[in-house]
């Protein structure tokens, strides 16, 4: 399998991961599309340097989340990107308004967290264990636990306050 085919396979298998990062770090559909493509582009650029020994998802999260931080400073759309359909509404295949509303509220509150908290909670929700989170984020494993508890409390109080 050549490089391009391998890369395409990896991206297709992990497109959900990229989409979720794009949702959490942007506020509009346009920005989401731009970030999504930027991440794919950055992954492609570093695909050669990807060390097979390290976990694929660790590498992907790292590149995607770092790219998302980079992307924050750009407020205007400066390049022509390829139109892709990243509207969250399209995922509401089964129309369950209550579920939909809960997801929306959760996303809204995660958006208000600072960058570090956002990164940690994303990985936690994605089912990563403390060690993996520590390795991607670059903090100690014990610190991960403390931070997760604090973020959960923070989100809980925010959600209760809104209700």
């Amino acid at each position, binding site marked *: 399998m050549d490089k*391009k085919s391998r*890369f*395409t396979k990896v*991206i*297709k298998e992990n*497109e*959900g991961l990229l*989409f*979720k990062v794009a949702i959490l770090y942007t506020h509009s559909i346009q920005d989401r599309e*731009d970030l999504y*493509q*930027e991440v*794919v*582009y*950055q992954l*492609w*650029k*570093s695909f050669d*340097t990807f060390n097979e020994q390290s976990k694929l998802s660790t590498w992907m999260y*790292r*590149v995607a*989340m*770092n*790219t998302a*931080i*980079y*992307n*924050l*400073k*750009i407020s205007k759309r*400066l*390049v*022509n*990107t*390829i139109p*892709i*359909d*990243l509207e969250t509404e*399209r*995922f*509401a*295949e089964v129309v369950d308004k209550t*579920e939909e509303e*809960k*997801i929306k509220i*959760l996303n809204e509150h995660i958006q208000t967290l*600072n*960058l*570090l908290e956002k*990164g940690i909670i994303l990985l936690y*929700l*994605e089912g990563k264990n403390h060690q993996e989170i520590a390795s*991607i*984020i*670059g*903090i100690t494993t014990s610190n991960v636990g403390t931070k997760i508890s604090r973020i*959960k409390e923070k*989100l809980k109080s925010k959600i209760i306050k809104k209700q």
Partner: protein
Amino acid sequence: MKSNWDEMSKRIEKQEILNNHLIEKMTHQKYKSKLEKIGNSEYIGSLTCYLAATYLIINFTKIEEFIFQLLCIITILLLFTLPIISLKSLRGMKNISIHTAKYSETIKTFMHRKMKFYKLQRINMILAFLLLIILLPVLASIYGKDINSITNFWTIIVPVFIAFFASFSFITWRYYSKILKNLEKELRDL
């Protein structure tokens, strides 16, 4: 919280947003990375400054009085300095390693550089104010006009102009300071 997230993940996994063709297009040379393109406005601004400086250099001999010649030199120096400050701060923002850095390192670098950027922006703002004040008599001198003969120039036009720019600068300064304070707080939390 986790069940809501899992619900969203399930829906996302079910969909196929990308096809081979789209992925290939994204990796193609035609798609220029946004990160490599940032700063177009800064480059245009710099070019404008250098063109203005060239204009002043060409017309320098038309200025007769020493004081206006001195102001013209200061203006030229400012026109050269402003773009350097702007481009320097921009370059600083672009040099972060996306592929190898750990997330917390990227945040730290990003925050530090952002702080530097805003500090430089504040300096830029003061220099731009200075530039606007001294550019007027310099241009009047090049065109052979006596600014003293303009009605209400010193009594109304200049004070209104200064008052307007001073309040604008004050608001902008406070805005930048607030951003810097928040950034410092976030850095402390890391």
